Structure formats: structure tokens, C-alpha cells
């Protein structure tokens, strides 16, 4: 994906786009994936330029928080604040990262990942 470098460059302090907030309203793992419905993409037009870009990126394909930060060229922490807001506002659907507890759940996931790697 090629995207012109953000013309605002370093003149804008990183957290200006979050209105100075540095703490996300919920913790989102770097690998957690997000999806936006077509309706949510339309709605996000009114939520500001950065949120609209994020929603548009998540509509065709589930993307992780890390991918969203890379594609928008926003720092990870800034992206996390925006994404957490969008999840709270119903603009993005948050999908779960790997289960951290439960022997059976974790073994099932590891087994699926192993199978996926072997098929590569």
C-alpha cells in the first residue's frame, strides 16, 4: 500500500488528533483485529478525518491495530486511542486476540496455528 507521507509531518504533536488524550478508553492488543460495516464507514465521515480513514481501511478486510497504525502513519498509541473510541461508539467491531486463559482454548488455538503453518 502506498500512501503519500502525511503532509502535516512533525508539525502536529502526535496526540493532537486525540485532543491530547493519551490513555485509550479500553486496552486493545496490538494484534487484535477490527472490522467496520459499510454503514459504519458512512457514519464515521462525521467523526473526523483520521477515524474515517481507519473505518474505510477496516471495511473490506479485518485489520489489526498494528496494521491500522502502519497504514495511517499514526503512532501506535494515538491509533489505539482513536480505535478504542470508535469501538465504544459502535463504529468498529473488535475481534478477540488469542485466548490467554483456559487450557483447552489455548491448546485449540495453538493446534489451529500449527495446522495453518504446516499448510504454508
Amino acid at each position, binding site marked *: *500500500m502506498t*500512501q503519500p507521507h502525511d503532509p502535516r509531518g512533525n508539525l502536529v504533536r*502526535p496526540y493532537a488528533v486525540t485532543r491530547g488524550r493519551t490513555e485509550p478508553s479500553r486496552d486493545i*492488543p*496490538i*494484534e*487484535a*483485529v477490527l*472490522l467496520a460495516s459499510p454503514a459504519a464507514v458512512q457514519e464515521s465521515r462525521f467523526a473526523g478525518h483520521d477515524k474515517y480513514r481507519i473505518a*474505510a*481501511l477496516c471495511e*473490506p*478486510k*479485518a485489520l*489489526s491495530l*498494528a*496494521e491500522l*497504525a*502502519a*497504514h495511517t502513519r499514526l*503512532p*501506535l*498509541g*494515538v491509533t489505539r486511542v482513536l480505535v478504542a473510541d470508535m469501538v465504544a461508539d459502535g463504529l468498529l467491531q473488535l*475481534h*478477540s*486476540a*488469542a*485466548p*490467554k486463559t483456559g*487450557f483447552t482454548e*489455548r*491448546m485449540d*488455538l*495453538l*493446534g*489451529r*496455528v*500449527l*495446522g*495453518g*503453518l*504446516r*499448510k*504454508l
Partner: protein
Amino acid sequence: MDFASSEERTRPHPAEITSAKIVVAGGFGVGKTTLVGAVSEIEPLTTEAVMTVAGQGIDDASKVPGKESTTVAMDFGRITMADDLILYLFGTPGQTRFWFMWDELIRGAVGAAVLVDTRRLTDAFAPLDYFENRHLPYLVAVNCFDGAPRYEPEEVREALAIPARVPLVMCDARHRDSVKTVLISVVEHAMATLVAEHERATPVG
């Protein structure tokens, strides 16, 4: 923007998508991004975290004079395994002074591979120390560069004082099949570790 093909768009998204990650650690220039790129379906991407260097561990960074902000870059790749399962591979920032970023990266990870370059064995000490003190299954992958001194696996293990319980594999970070083998070993080691912990927690009889 690379919008997905129309075929991809008409297929409904699954109700729940799970993502997992494997961390690739190692010193600067050891081949982490090369390894990620060898198996990733996308060109490795870079995400940046901005931090205030002087502000680390201090509640209000604005009160610190002469604070300067630093950007920590992490490269990562993606393997879509199924409609509802995605594996991400994250390379750690090369500089070991960014440990706090490593903590965020390893949280919830399946496991980790510490990549080692035999030409600069001492660069491996800090990452190995880090994982020895964390609760995450990891293995050591020795990257065999062309022209790099070839050592027997046991020589590397001894030189780096790697405990017997930590698997050690030889690899070539440029080759897909070789990297695939490394990742399979990480997951197998994670499964074995999980089973062993489970058995210790629930003794038979």
C-alpha cells in the same frame, strides 16, 4: 489504498475472528525483518510508537526539562490462515533499551524466537536474558548467513549458556521453508510447555 477484490468483499465476514502473534526477537541487524518477510503475505509493515525518553517512569513528563521524544519502530507481517484466523509476526525493536515495548509485544503471544547471528554472538545475550525472565515459551534460531562462521548447534548453546529446555534450531531467515520450520518449532514448543504446565497443575492420582 488496496481495497480487497470484489470476490473478497461479497463474502460475509465471519462472526468472530481470532488473531495470534509470534514475536521475533534479536539484536539489531540480525535478520528479524528478513525472517518476517520470508513468510508474510504482505510486505512487512512498520508501526511506530512515540515515547518521551526522559519521561519514562515519571508521572508527568511535561515537568521534566529537556525531554526529547524518540520513535521506536517495529516491523511486522501477517499470515491469514483461515477466514477466522490470522497470525501476526512481530519483530522487536533492535535497541534493547526499549524493553517496555517488548513487554507490550509479548503480552498474549503464542511464543517467541530469538534470532542469533553467529558473527555477533554477544548481541544475543540481552534478548536471551530478557526471555529467561519472562513467562513466554521461546526458542533460539541461529541465522546461518552466507559466509558466517558455521558452528554446531551445541557449540552455540554452550557459548550462549542456553538451558537444555530451550529448543535451538538452525535456519536461513531468507528462505520460506526454513522460516516455516522455525515457526512450527515455536508453536510445538508452546504446546509442549502448556501441556507440561497443565500436568503439573493437575497431578494424576
